[in-house]
């Protein structure tokens, strides 16, 4: 009878499988942890004789497994919210330790020379795999019992995968040892000289100049392009005129050609008017194609009630006044979205600048410049500086992006409507 006691905050349906799994995971402690060439070890060998990070991991993992099993039994006999929470914590510690051991075992086993041969993942024995798999099952059921969303496990794993490259580039940017190839993840020494080198060595690597170039192009571009997009979207959404449908169709057809197919011709035209290899050309070409991006903005304008325009027209407003006094002031989210995407676009635009500037290094934008630094014959010299450059470019943009994220989401989900 006592076993069926209902406790608020617990879901007892999952209690039994959770208890069974937690206890079953103990099997892993007795079975061989790894074996090779006739020698085999248990997790206790690792916890006792290993070197480096492997030793505490194995010890904590094993103890946490025991603790989780013990807490499982305790909760099975007398359940309480606090008890189950403690159990989940123990199971989580065990799971994390065993998961990290998959990458930490080699150094631990080889360091203590426990197997006699260099360790490989395929030498893991039944004891390890059982403990790993069952500890996940136990954790999931224990979390379900405690009514904690199991999604956390997936989110943690995914976040690590997503943030790993970013962590790597951050670490590399502060790495003291230069060179592309290093046989370890954590640098031997940290320094900020990669950043100072980027901005001090103007003759070889004019990164400061590239940065300013990109800033100029992005700032000019986002203002001009936004004005053009707003104008086109307003006209196509709020007015009707002869040739409107034809214009929309023509834009659609143009959009179906690969954008940079025409870059050779554009390059020749720019050369003809003496604008090749210049930043102005980049801004002009960007503005010339801006109208193609009117869709999202038009979709937004389409949702504004027509009655507003009609009322203003009766009061004697001209179309220009409708645009500047009514539509534009009500479109703050979409304006911010357009400015933001155009600003970001200038930072990552690679194809056209790479064609346009050719070998004129001083006019490069950061995209072209950073790609230049990772070419195979330069990568060993510049890799840490490349990382520093990437961080320098990314940080302001990430801050800007996260700050204005709300508008970006609105624009993005608006885009699928229209």
């Amino acid at each position: 009878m006592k076993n069926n006691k209902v406790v608020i905050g617990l879901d007892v349906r999952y209690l039994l499988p959770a208890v069974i799994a937690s206890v079953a995971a103990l099997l892993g402690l007795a079975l061989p942890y790894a074996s090779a060439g006739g020698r085999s070890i248990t997790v206790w060998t690792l916890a006792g004789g290993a070197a480096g990070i492997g030793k505490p991991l194995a010890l904590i993992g094993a103890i946490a497994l025991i603790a989780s099993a013990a807490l499982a039994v305790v909760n099975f006999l007398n359940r309480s919210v606090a008890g189950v929470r403690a159990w989940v914590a123990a199971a989580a510690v065990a799971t994390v330790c065993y998961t990290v051991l998959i990458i930490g075992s080699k150094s631990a086993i080889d360091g203590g020379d426990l197997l006699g041969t260099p360790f490989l993942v395929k030498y893991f024995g039944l004891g390890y795999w059982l403990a790993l798999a069952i500890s996940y099952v136990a954790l999931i059921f224990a979390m379900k019992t405690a009514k904690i969303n199991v999604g956390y496990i997936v989110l943690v794993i995914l976040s690590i995968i997503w943030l790993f490259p970013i962590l790597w580039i951050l670490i590399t940017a502060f790495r003291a040892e230069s060179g592309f190839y290093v046989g370890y993840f954590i640098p031997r020494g940290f320094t900020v000289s990669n950043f100072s080198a980027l901005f001090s060595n103007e003759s070889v690597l004019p990164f400061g100049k590239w940065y300013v170039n990109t800033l100029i192009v992005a700032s000019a571009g986002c203002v001009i392009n936004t004005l053009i997009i707003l104008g086109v979207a307003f006209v196509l959404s709020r007015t009707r005129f002869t040739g409107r449908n034809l214009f929309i169709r023509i834009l659609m057809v143009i959009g179906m050609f690969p954008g940079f197919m025409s870059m050779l011709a554009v390059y020749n035209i720019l050369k003809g008017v003496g604008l090749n290899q210049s930043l102005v050309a980049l801004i002009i070409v960007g503005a010339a194609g801006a109208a193609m991006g009117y869709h999202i903005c038009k979709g937004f304008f389409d949702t504004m009630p027509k009655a507003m325009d009609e009322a203003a027209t009766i009061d004697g407003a001209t179309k220009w006044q409708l645009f500047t006094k009514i539509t534009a002031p009500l479109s703050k989210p979409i304006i911010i979205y357009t400015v933001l995407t155009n600003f970001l676009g200038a930072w990552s635009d690679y194809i056209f600048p790479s064609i346009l500037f050719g070998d004129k290094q001083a006019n490069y934008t950061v995209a072209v410049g950073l790609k230049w630094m990772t070419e195979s014959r330069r990568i060993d010299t510049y890799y840490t500086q490349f990382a520093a450059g990437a961080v320098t470019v990314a940080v302001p943009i990430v801050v800007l992006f996260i700050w204005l994220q709300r508008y970006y989401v609105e624009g993005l989900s608006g885009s699928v409507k229209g």
Partner: protein
Amino acid sequence: MGEKTKSLEKSNNLLKIFTNGDIFTKLSFIIFGAANIAHKQIVKGLVYLGLEVAYIAYMATTGLSAMGMLGTLGTVEQGMALNPATGIFETIEGDNSMLILLFGVIACVITAAFVCLWLVTIYSGETARLLDGKGKRVPTIVDDVRELFDGSIHKLLLAIPVIGLVVFTVMPLIYMVLMAFTNYDSSHQPPGNLFTWVGMDNFKMLVASGGSLSSTFWPILGWTMIWGFVASFSCYFGGMFLAILINSKGIGLKKMWRTFFVITMAIPSFITLLVVATMLGDRGILNVLLQNWGFSTSALPFLSDKTWARCTVIIVNLWVGVPVTMLMVTGILMNIPAELYEAARIDGANPWVQFRKITFPYMWFVTTPYLISNLIGNFNNFGVIYFLTGGGPMTLDYYKGAGKTDLLVTWLYKLTKDSKDYNLAATIGILIFIISATFTLISFNLSKAATNEEGFQ
């Protein structure tokens, strides 16, 4: 009397305008703005006339000869010739086929613009005549300018975009499309050599020759298709899964989790892709770590083996693309009425059934157009392929420079930038256009969005 009223009706038929109009109308078919000047629109008429004079001057000096040379694309090859006057060999400049084609296209576009101007002036003159004939006030130039901010606001706001599009998009596109019908390849490079019209030869060579070109084209097209579908759908479902996960009840700190993934999106994609490419190389950190951790004894060919590389680009594309879909889906999820889920829960539907019966149908309905434009975008996804693998691994089975992960677009880029086979690049561009157009037409038929455009207002 009867005939006079008839002639004051507005007509769009050029012939009717000509026969009904007065002498100035007839004159305005040849001398632009004649009707405007005669009917009190002097400034406007003079502007039209000025434009006509400018066009004639342009055609007389350069335009006509530029158009005339389009037929042959140049006949005089650069080379050495004996100069009879001095008795020594001198370099002859020769014709530059590339410039001839470019100037020819410019002349044609200007002529097309001139024809449009011709129509505009005739209609404008006719309007002025009718107003004048009815005794109404003919708008002056000041009125016209004022009208630009009201009824004709489209002329004001579209002027700059249209000029920009014509000069930097339409004209170059015409130029490149024409190039697909020439032999402007690496062995016909101006100014040293001439190139000329070859008709459909490039298309035949690419699609049906059985030679190295068509045995490059078809596999690349096949991979482009596989890539497009797998990349789009994996990101779509991956993003949807992630959004639903973060949005689900009981997950705390939603904003923090979202930010973790959004960071990868905020960093310019070329940076993340370059970084990931260096991480995945044979000596990159991932291979180093895998060996340090005992997963493998030698470097894994993430980017240097055909199958590995293809899987790698798809997985890395997930890493780049899932956050975008996640953000988009997050916005849409908030539009689904919460009562639907409430009712479903009461009826005992588990989360999977809720997803299948509520979330997914709604999502699918709303996002079909997005999915198709995303599909076309992925066919043309230059960045992921170019920055990650550069199209590699290279192979001798393919035409020079193309690799096993190359898409049609990256091959186009390489043909333009590295091997200078512009005719092939242009041909591929046209084929990409045909593919995109096909999918766009399908999406238009699938989605009702195009038909109820007015529905929201």
